[in-house]
Structures are given as C-alpha cells and as structure tokens.
C-alpha cells in the first residue's frame, strides 16, 4: 500500500499524548496500523510525553506498593491489548464491506454510525459513496479525519486512495468526487456531534433526518 496522505503532526501529537477524543483516535489508530511512516513519527512524539512525564514533580504516595506475588499462570498472561472493536468496524477494516449493515443516507451515499463510549463526544461512522458521485461543497467544523478503506476520492487537494487519511483543518472547504470505477468507502470521525456541525450535518441532515 503506497500512502501519500498522512496524519498532521498536531494530530500525532494529540495521539501520543493520549488526549485525542475517542472517535478521532479510532481513525488515527486504523491509519497507524497500515502506515509505517506515521508509526515512526509517533515514536518521536512519544519522546515528548516521556520527557514531560519524567519532569513532573513527584507526588508523595501514602500507600505501599500493591501486594503482588507470583501466581500460577500469571506470568504467561497474554491479554490482547486491542480494544473491543464494533463488529461493523472490524468487518470494514478487514475489507468485508458487504457485512456492514449500510443505511442509505442520500442518493449514492450510505453510512453506518459506529458506537462510542457513553461519555465520548464526537461522531464515528463508515461512509460509502457510489462511483462518480460528487458531494456538495462543504467545510469541516472542528476536527475531522477521514481514512480511505477502499476505492478513492479526489478533491482540490489531490486523490485519496486506500490507506490515505484526510486530516483537514476546520477552515478548509472541498468538493470531493468518488472514484469513477471503484467508488469510495471510508471511516470518518469528527470531534463534535454531527447535528451541530461538520460534513455529515450538511450532507445528510436534510436527507436522513440525523
């Protein structure tokens, strides 16, 4: 996979800091899983966190170290660190796009909202756009990240293919058009609820009653 569009440094910084809202972190983590360049950059960002962590003034602890002892089986504990992934997202990330229960949102546009933790703000959803469909010109309120899972789209900034991520500023407007042959399937996140702002509000709200 040749990746041409990467995460912004400020996005990687927020990721390394662990300060990214959940919806955005899901897209970032998915892009990182296919992008060695961004993984290398992330390690450098992590150095900053480490340096700041070590520079913190230690806060005296009142309790002793937790009691630990070797228990049978403990040493071989092999827990997976991967968080539980919604099945639709898992299917999409594995390329099983037909397994996603798509909902029609507008002519040539389908979507599937993915659940977030109860307290999480923001919006995460899969989006499918039919070949050659042109979306109306729109801006992006807040921060939005879009990872291409299949197919491609083009806009004023270039062509985004599988693995590429669109990490656009909130002051940018664009008119994306889905690939003539393949269409486009992507994972899109916003740090705000779509009914207040963002691409989906403008695109889908009048049509789908979001």
């Amino acid at each position, binding site marked *: 996979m040749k990746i041409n569009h990467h995460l912004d*440094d400020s996005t990687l910084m927020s990721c390394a800091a662990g300060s990214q809202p959940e919806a955005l*972190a899901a897209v970032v983590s998915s892009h990182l899983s296919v992008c060695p360049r961004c993984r290398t950059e992330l390690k450098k960002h992590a150095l*900053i966190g*480490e340096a*700041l962590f*070590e520079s*913190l003034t230690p*806060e005296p602890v009142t309790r002793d*170290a937790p009691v630990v002892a070797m228990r049978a089986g403990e040493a071989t504990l092999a827990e997976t660190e991967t968080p539980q992934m919604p099945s639709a997202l898992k299917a999409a990330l594995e390329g099983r796009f037909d397994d996603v229960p798509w909902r029609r949102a507008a002519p040539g546009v389908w979507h599937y909202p993915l659940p977030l933790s109860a307290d999480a703000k923001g919006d995460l959803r899969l989006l499918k756009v039919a070949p050659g469909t042109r979306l109306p010109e729109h801006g992006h309120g807040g921060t939005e990240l879009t990872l291409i899972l299949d197919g491609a789209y083009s806009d004023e900034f270039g062509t985004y293919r599988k693995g590429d991520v669109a990490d656009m500023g909130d002051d940018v407007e664009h008119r994306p058009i889905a690939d003539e042959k393949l269409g486009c399937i992507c994972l899109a996140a916003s*740090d705000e609820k779509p009914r207040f702002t963002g691409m989906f509000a403008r695109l889908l709200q009048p049509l789908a009653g979001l």
Partner: protein
Amino acid sequence: MVQVLENARATRRPYPVMIPRTMSDLLQKVAQSRDVEAFRKLFELYGPRVKSYMMRQGADSTTAEDLAQETLLTVWRKAQLYSDEKGSATTWIFTIARNLRIDRLRREVSWQPLPENRDQEASDAPDPEEEVTEKERRDKVRAVLATLPPDQSEVVTLSYVEGLSHSEIAERLGLPLGTVKSRMRLAYQKVKEAVEDIR
C-alpha cells in the same frame, strides 16, 4: 494555599533519580523472575510520578493514588510483554498510565495499544551504544522543550500533561483551532530536528 504548598514541599522526601539502565533492569527482573523486590523499587520510582501525572490530568489525590497503584499492578501483570522490548521502561510505563487515564478519567476506549516489539528491528538486550543514544535523546528532548517559546510550550503541556484535546485547548486559551495546531507543529519540528541530529 501557598502555606499548604510549602508544607507539602517541606515534607517531601527526595526522590531517586531515574536512570534508564536501572529501570529497564528492574522491569526485566519483574518480567523474567517475578522479582517482588524489583517491583517494589519500580513502585518507589514510578508511583509518585504516575500519581502526579494523574493529578495534573484532573484526578483528585485519592483517585490519582488508586490509578498509580493500578498502573503498577498492570506493569506487574504485563511485564512479560516488555521482556523483549528494547525501548525504555519509562515509555512503556507511561503508555500504560496514559491508557488507564483515558479509560478511567475520560471513560473512553484507549485505541492505542502498548508499544509492540514485534515490528521493531528486534534485538535482545540494548547494547551500550544504544543506551547512550537513548539517554542523549531524552536529554536533548528535554533541552529543546525548555527552550520553546511560551505559546508553544503552553499547548504542548496542555496536550501531554493536562490531557486536553485540540478543541479543549482552543477553548481554554480562546484561540482558533488552527492556531493551536500550528503551534504544536512548530514545537514538534524543533524536537524532531534535535532528535534526528543524533545518530
């Protein structure tokens, strides 16, 4: 308030200096021989720092201490995963603390897994030369951070230490989102240049 702070300072014991070599040795001992004494030392080194980190992230003292205990317990349970890691112990423990914070304080899913060793050009024990580079790199990062202009330093601290998202920083400082992001980019460029100088 000032009085309270001064009292706290007066009763504070000096903390051991963190030496990368020692810390990864301790972690290796915990991983390989489930060494309880080594674990206690790790707690002494990291407990107070994790507590401090959690408090800066908005936890009260009791919660912060619970989370420090839990972080170190996770270190004990998962030390095995560290054993091949050539990265620093601090990176690893910081990642555990960071993920626990997202989970407990933000009540969100922490999407970032622990640093994996598998995709690294694995080598077992870090050779002495790498050890030097590691230390050099950290000192360099700290030095660069100390020279950042206040406006850049501020957004970096709010992001890493106080755990605020881009939008939350923009709101806190009354700045456009784009300004927050560009300050972060500028700060990172300086750190990156300094780190890449080291070969």
